[in-house]
């Protein structure tokens, strides 16, 4: 291909970055050619974001480039004056960050903020810059651009705000786009739209793009080449197809294996042996939960939802943010009151019980929370956290019995006993997640709600947690409601799937059937937005 002959847009040689005396990037050498999309993949702490910041000389705090060179369009970054650097940022290289809303100024209309970039780099008048911004808004898929340009950031959805940020990055026609986890936290369908758009615009304009992510699916779909980072170094680099089929390093192979779905969930928990009419452990019938808003409007978060979870089986409740799936979980464990409907647990309606009578039942109905860290009281030790629910168990009144159970639980979630006396902040995200699971399982419940158990976790940690849940399903014969938007984990864990949208379940069925033969349009759309690496690797 002729593009290899052209001069690279961006090139680093032996780039090192240090914070104070601590070196966090070690001799990174990279090239980005025109028209090329390069993926940089790594886990938390690999130095991906530091690298992106170093490329536009915007390192936070005490960070500084401690060695090597960065050439952008043939000019050495480290020899540029402050004025040249200002022209470079946004004009030559544009950075798109995570969480678009926090990147926008909350007190100014977004159109004005995008126009500012043009005024700074091209010296356009306010009116001309505004017109250019509005026409670019239309091109990045913002509906009703004229009106949206007048909107303030809080009036936009996450996907819309991310489009505004993309428009802001594109408007001064830079040569290089750096997308640093630009779609983190967006729904899968929105993520695909946003990335499709970004990559298409880059290719049209002959720009180069660097997509920094921890999602190998994104790399597989969008990137020509991929660089794997670990602990501040690039451990492997090459064409994406080559990497997906034959990773050169053990670490690359491990990441790929983690991103793959596990084999279909274990043998069904003997539905054959069970009499066909055996009542389900948990049965939800016509559950309704509405939230009145201050404007008098009603949000139908859960709108007449029914499903059942038999003993020992896992039902995955999938849907995008705002579909009401988390609200269902919170109604089941009575963190929220329900408006109407029944929840039969072990043939008792738990919604009508007074709090006092429901409390003992919490032993059997537990929940694992979404965010690993914030669901743990920061001032409690791990042992105290895990022991808290044991107060519900009358056989656990002695200290020694509780202590033994805590150690047993730590072992169950594969955590070393020495962590019992540590505090949550000293743990990694994966360990925090395990503590949350140990705590929910401490009373040996029959039914557990897992709320987004795999979000906010690194690739390998996510795979470990999925494996752990699989083992727990088998060992403890748990019935679980698995609330998630991560279809990869659904494949690996769930017997049945219920797809939720706008507070209603649009489709239910056995996992294999849903993935192989989705009936509802929305289910098809969700599946279409998934980026499984299996689709791209041989």
């Amino acid at each position, binding site marked *: 291909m002729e593009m290899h002959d052209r001069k690279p847009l961006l090139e680093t040689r032996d780039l090192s970055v240090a914070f104070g005396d601590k070196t966090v990037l070690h001799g990174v050498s990279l090239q980005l050619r025109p028209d090329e999309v390069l993926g940089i993949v790594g886990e938390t702490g690999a130095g991906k974001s530091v690298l992106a910041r170093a490329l536009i000389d915007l390192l936070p705090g005490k960070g500084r480039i401690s060695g090597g060179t960065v050439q952008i369009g043939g000019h050495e970054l480290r020899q540029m004056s402050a004025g040249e650097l200002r022209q470079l940022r946004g004009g030559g290289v544009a950075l798109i960050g995570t969480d678009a809303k926090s990147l926008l100024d909350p007190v100014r209309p977004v159109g004005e903020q995008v126009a500012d970039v043009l005024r700074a780099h091209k010296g356009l008048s306010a009116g001309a810059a505004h017109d250019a911004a509005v026409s670019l808004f239309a091109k990045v898929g913002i509906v009703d651009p004229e009106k949206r340009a007048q909107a303030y950031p809080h009036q936009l959805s996450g996907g819309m705000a991310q489009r505004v940020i993309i428009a802001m990055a594109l408007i001064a026609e830079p040569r290089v786009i750096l997308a640093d986890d630009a779609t983190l936290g967006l729904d899968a369908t929105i993520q695909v739209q946003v990335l499709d758009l970004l990559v298409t615009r880059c290719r049209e304009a002959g720009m180069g793009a660097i997509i920094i992510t921890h999602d190998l699916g994104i790399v597989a779909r969008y990137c020509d080449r991929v660089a794997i980072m670990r602990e501040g170094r690039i451990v492997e680099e090459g064409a994406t197809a080559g990497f997906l089929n034959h990773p050169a390093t053990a670490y690359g192979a491990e990441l790929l294996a983690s991103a793959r779905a596990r084999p279909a969930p274990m043998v069904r928990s003997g539905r054959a042996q069970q009499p066909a009419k055996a009542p389900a452990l948990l049965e939800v019938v016509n559950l309704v939960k509405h939230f009145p808003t201050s404007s008098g409007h009603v949000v139908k978060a859960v709108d007449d939802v029914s499903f059942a979870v038999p003993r020992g089986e896992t039902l995955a409740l999938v849907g995008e943010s705002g579909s009401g799936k988390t609200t269902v979980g919170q109604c089941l*464990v009575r963190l929220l009151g329900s408006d109407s409907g029944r929840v039969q647990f072990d043939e008792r309606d738990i919604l009508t019980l007074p709090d006092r009578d429901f409390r003992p039942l919490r*032993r059997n109905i537990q*929940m694992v*929370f979404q965010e690993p860290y914030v669901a743990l009281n*920061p*001032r409690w030790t791990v042992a105290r956290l895990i022991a*808290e*629910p044991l107060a519900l168990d009358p056989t656990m009144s002695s200290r020694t019995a509780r202590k033994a159970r805590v150690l047993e639980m730590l072992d169950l979630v594969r955590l070393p006993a020495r962590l019992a006396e540590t505090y949550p902040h000293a743990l990694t995200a994966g360990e925090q997640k395990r503590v949350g699971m140990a705590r929910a399982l401490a009373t040996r419940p029959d039914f557990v709600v897992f709320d987004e158990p795999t979000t906010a976790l690194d690739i390998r940690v996510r795979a470990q947690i999925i494996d752990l849940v699989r083992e727990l399903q088998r060992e403890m014969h748990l019935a679980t409601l698995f609330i998630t938007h991560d279809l990869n984990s659904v494949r690996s864990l769930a017997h049945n799937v219920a797809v939720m949208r706008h507070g209603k379940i649009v489709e239910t069925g056995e996992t294999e059937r849903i993935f192989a033969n989705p009936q509802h349009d929305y289910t098809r759309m969700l599946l279409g937005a998934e980026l499984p690496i299996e689709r791209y690797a041989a």
Partner: protein
Amino acid sequence: MSQIRNFITFILSRPGAAFGLALLLLQVVAIVFAPLLATHAPTEADPLASLQPPSGAHWLGTDVSGMDIYSRIIYATRVNLLISIVAVAVAFVIGVPVGLVVGYYRGWASTFVMRVFDFIQSFPVFVLGMALVSVMGQEIWNVAIVLAVLFVPIFARLIRAEALSLRDRPFIAAARCSGATDGQIMFRHILPNALTPAIVQISISIGMAILLTAGLSFIGAGVRMPLPEWGLMVSVGSQQMILGVWWVALFPGLAIVFSVLSFALMADALRDYVDPRRERA
């Protein structure tokens, strides 16, 4: 214990905080060893030695009744700090649980309590002080009670604000799922996480209390002569200020300045110490 040692090390590494600590220790010494440090009895009047300038016999001079200003300043440390510490302790013990409950349960009762606090805080301090003291009498305990009434809303509001944001945090939901009762959630989960700003406020409030005690005495709503109290001493001395007798008002005034300063500096140090953004060694 190692927490205290860490805190001391932290203070000594910062000049402002170290100065504050030194001033604080000076006051402790004055309280404990007052009889040894004083050269005269604090209430011993000597009409023949009225309004003496600083000298070898009276290091900081004498006031209009001939009482030794140096000795009175030393003994007044006991009175001023006693009033302030008692007032703040009472306010803390009442304000913290009230703020916790008001922040945890939202409803008309909580709103009512907050309106009462608004009422107390919007009332001019000295008018309120004069009203309460004139009803209850000019005793040091009454001054302490007045100050405690003024400070309860401060502590309650701080804890309430923390409780309001903490009660919706996921770890509280997780605790509820683990079977924690309302009382357990409030006192075991929310309180330990909400206490930090209130602890910093203790030091700030002691400084404020010293100033207010002095202010109340100055306007005649505090303690009465001949009790040694800094504000009262300034008040008495201010009448002679215009005649060029500067020492009667100046020295107790300086005592107020340094005492308030010591608590303000300690509060600053404490705030920085508990700031999670500070890198712990």
